[in-house]
Every structure is written in structure tokens, then in C-alpha cells.
């Protein structure tokens, strides 16, 4: 355990054009935290995530992962990433196990997976309850099952930071609950979770800390305070977003 936060953004500004998408954003996430970033469409959530992962370089400010500049961070095994939908083509024949094995690639480089690597793959499959699906084509799975497989890929790599970009879009309600239960279990095991999420109900129910983003940070604090604060209205421009569930 190092003292540096797992994620640390300091006064980060970034824009694809002259207009910044993210402006003066500071955010520190410590080991073991479970944090959700919420905001309306176009609020810069996904951009923030890409800055955190080092896929984008800030125009101003610094982005660090585990105390190193995010763009220079090269210990890929420590990062687990789950996208909204996998970018693979629908016809690609690839099994769940083959996808999960990718989690070990940062550890083996050009080499082959050892018996220990394969054991880590099987363990990760079991952790997310997908062992029975290991030889299924990934395209045959439901949305919820597929996202579990991607979590397993992160676990196989021994990730200690899990970054998820709206992982439950297109996933049926029952599977969404199971998915959040899984995240909670992993969080209990000590994995740091950063969740980019549009589903405010899920956030209110499951997450410890909320960051409300719309180009800049409007709120950053415990979920209980978030639900009662006026941050929602200021971020989303309406007070009715959580109205039904609050």
C-alpha cells in the first residue's frame, strides 16, 4: 500500500476543441473507495474517465494513477476497465475464457500463459459466477453476463482499480441488481471502484461517494448528502431527476 491516492486529478482542464469539456476538475480517490461519477449526457463523464485512465492528456493540470502520471502509467494489470459495450464485432468468434485470459496479457507480455495464469483465469470466472459459461461465445451472452465476463477479465489481471463506464446500459433490471451486488462484493474485498453512471437510483442505493459532474464538479461527498443536496438540480438543471425514488 502506498500513500498516494489511487486516482488524483488536480485542476484538470481538457477540451477536444477550444471549449473545454472538463474544467478545473480536482478529484482524489483513495484505495478501497467506491465512487460514482454522475452527470447528464455531454457532461464530460466519459472524458473524465479517459483522463483518469491515461487515454487522454490534460490540457492543463495533472492526472495521476497510483502516484504516477496517468499517461505514463504502464502497469496495465492493476487497472480493470469495463466499457458500456464491448467494441468487438458481433461476428467475432471468441469464448468467455479467451476474453478473461486477456486480463493476464499485461503480466505475460509476448509469452504464453502459465499454469498459474490459467488458474487465475479460472478463479476470476468463478468469482463472477461465470465458470459454466467459460466456453460460450461472448456474443451468445446476455448484457449482464457479458459485463460479468469483463469484470472477470479485470479480476484475472489482479486489478486493484476497477473503472466502469456506464456498465449497465442495455442490461435487464434483474441482472443490474446482481451486477451491483457483484461490485459491492469486490469493493468489500478491497478493490477500488470508479463507476461512471447515469442510473441515479443505482448510485443512491449502492455507492459510498458521489461526484456530480457537468464540465466542473458540482458535488463531491457521501451519497446520503448528495441525495438531500441541491447538487442534482444544479448539475442536471432539474430537481425532478430522483423525484420518483427519493
Amino acid at each position, binding site marked *: 500500500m502506498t500513500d498516494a491516492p489511487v486516482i488524483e486529478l488536480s485542476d484538470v482542464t481538457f477540451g477536444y476543441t477550444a471549449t473545454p469539456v472538463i474544467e478545473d476538475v480536482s478529484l482524489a480517490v483513495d484505495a478501497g473507495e467506491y465512487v460514482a461519477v454522475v452527470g447528464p449526457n455531454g457532461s464530460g463523464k466519459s472524458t473524465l474517465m479517459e483522463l483518469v*485512465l491515461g487515454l487522454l492528456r490534460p490540457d492543463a493540470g495533472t492526472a495521476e494513477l497510483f502516484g504516477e502520471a496517468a499517461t505514463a502509467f504502464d502497469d496495465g494489470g492493476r487497472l480493470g476497465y469495463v*466499457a458500456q459495450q464491448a*467494441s468487438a464485432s458481433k461476428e467475432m468468434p471468441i469464448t468467455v475464457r479467451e476474453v478473461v485470459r*486477456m486480463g493476464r496479457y499485461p503480466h505475460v*507480455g509476448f509469452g504464453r500463459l502459465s499454469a498459474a495464469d490459467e*488458474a487465475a483465469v479460472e478463479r476470476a470466472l468463478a468469482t463472477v459466477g461465470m*465458470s*459454466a459459461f467459460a466456453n460460450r461465445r461472448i456474443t451468445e451472452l446476455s448484457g449482464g*453476463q457479458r459485463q460479468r465476463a469483463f469484470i472477470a*477479465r479485470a479480476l484475472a489481471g489482479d486489478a486493484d482499480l476497477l473503472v466502469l463506464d456506464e456498465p449497465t446500459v442495455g442490461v435487464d433490471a434483474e441482472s443490474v441488481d446482481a451486477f451491483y451486488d457483484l461490485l459491492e462484493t469486490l469493493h468489500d474485498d478491497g478493490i477500488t471502484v470508479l463507476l461512471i453512471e447515469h442510473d441515479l437510483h443505482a448510485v443512491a442505493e449502492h455507492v459510498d461517494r458521489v461526484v456530480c459532474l457537468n464540465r466542473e464538479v458540482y458535488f463531491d461527498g457521501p451519497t446520503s448528502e448528495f441525495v438531500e443536496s441541491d447538487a442534482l438540480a444544479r448539475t442536471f438543471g432539474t430537481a425532478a431527476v430522483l423525484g420518483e425514488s427519493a
Partner: protein
Amino acid sequence: MTTAAGAVPSATVQSVLSQSSSPLDPVLAPFYWLLSLWSEFLFGVHEATGIELLQYAFMHRAILVGLCIGVMAPLIGTFLVHRQLALIGDALAHTAFAGVAIGLFLNAVLNLGVSPYLTAVIVAVVAALLIELISEATGAYNDVSMAIVLSTGFALGTVLISLNAGGLAVGINQYLFGNLSTVSAENAAILLVLFAVIVGTVALTRNQLLYVTFDETAAAVAGIDVNWYNRVMVMLTALVVVGAMQIMGVILVAAMLVVPVAGAAQVSRSFGESLLVSVVLAELAVTLGIAASYYGEATAGGVIVLVAVGIYVASVAVGKAQDRRRTDATPEVGSIDETEHSTSSD
């Protein structure tokens, strides 16, 4: 049918070597030696079996080139098709044609005596890098830029050829449509070099190529230099295209990158299986196609592609039948806690 069968083996090495007097000879010498071994082996097969087409040294080279194409084209094609980059093979083949024209032009003007396939390799690799750099700058591969590269290459080729029409028009068909009988020892040896480079590179970087093919963003997060591997992939594509051009021709070469892969995707469960099946299907198409074109006296490239398409149609049918047979009892998604504790104990 057994014309000079006994005398041929000893003549093989000489006939292999006597065809070429290129500046590359010292470099290619070990590959000429391999070619002569291969040729002796096939003469042996001819003597034992009496298969007619095996009595000609040029067919030995054509078969070897075909077998190599049957491995390397689907090997690279699998990565391209699943990234929906099937068109890139076509674009590079047409720029390779410009490379051939430049080679013929230089040979005619400067009398260099270099195989036009070598200049084709250089031009195609440069074009491949250009396509990749454009895509990196614009953030996406787009069919417009590929169409522009394709047309530019072909236009440049035709202009160069027409400028020298007197001396160069002869033999252009062999590059456009491919030709079994014009695979020289030098070109076969160049192909063996390309084959070694391609198979070696894929064997070394298979993890990275698969990850980038499946999910570019996740691969980048995992610390893989995505742009670098994309460049490797397009350059390997350029090498495959030029290598396969000899018997497939510019116009049909891209089919070998795509059709066997598409067939394999229909019947395979896993990525590993699809790689293997695509190679098997491609080899089937190549061997059946070469034999059919020899006996039917038709253009090899065209026949091979027709056979490959036939195999693809059959694969679709088999794939559908497999799907129907699989009345899958969907397994239960395991519970999270129990499974974790039961497996993490070992």
C-alpha cells in the same frame, strides 16, 4: 505423363537457380536451397503417384506459394475481418500494383534487374503506414481515405505502365490476375521470406494483436501501445498482399484475406479455433483451386476464389445446422460468494 521423370530431379536445382540472376541472390540462397528440396520432394511424389501436374518445376513453386498463402492470408485476415477492416487488403493490393509498375519502370529505364515484387513490397508497406497514420490523425479508419489510396495506387500503376507501353505492356496480366506459370524461383524465395516474417511476427505478438482486435480501448488501458500494433498489422497486411499477388493477382488477392475467415467464423466457437479453421479452409481452396485451374486451363486466382466462396457457402450451411442442433440448456449464472470461496481456497 512420365516425361523425363528420372532425369528431372538432378536438373531441378539447376533449373531453380538458372532462372534468377538478381542482386538478391546471395541473400536468398538458403531459400533457393529449400525450394530445390521441395521440388525434389514433389518430383518424388510425381514418380510415386503419377500425378501429372507435379512433373513441372513451375508447378512445384506455384504449389509452395499457394500453400504459404493459405496460411498467411487467413492468419492476418482473421485480425482484419474482426475489426471490420476487410477493405484494407484491397486498397493495399492496388497500391502494390503501383509498386510493380515502378519496379518494371526502373528495370526498363535503369536496368536494375530487381523483382517488381520487391518494389511492390516497399510501396505497399509505405501505403499501409500512410493509411494507418491518417487513421491515427483522424481517429478512425474511413472508407473514403481507403478508396482514395486504392484509386491513387491503381491510377499511378496504369499511368506508369502506359508511359512505357512499348516495353512494359507484356506481362501486366500476370500481376492483375496472377499466374501459376510465372512464379520464378526468386519470387518464390521472396515469398518464403515474407512468410517467415509474417508468421514469426504474429506468433510473437498474438496476445497483443488479439487484445487490440477485440477491444482497442481496453487494450490501451492494459498498457498495450495500440497505434504501434495497428501499424504492425497494416504492414503485415501489405506483405501478405504482395506475397499472394503472384498467383492471386491484384484484383482478387484481398479475397484470400476475407473469404476463408468469414467461412471459419461461421463454424468456430473460439478465436483459436477460427484461426485454425480459416487456415484449413484456405488451404483447401488453394489446393483444389490450383488443381482445377491446371486441369481446366483457367486462371488460378479466379478458380481459387470461386472454390473459397463455395467453401464459405458450405460453412454458412454447416454453421446454421450447428446452431439448430445446439438446443442449449442455458447454465445457471453461478452465485458470487459461494463460487469465490470454493475456488480461491486452492
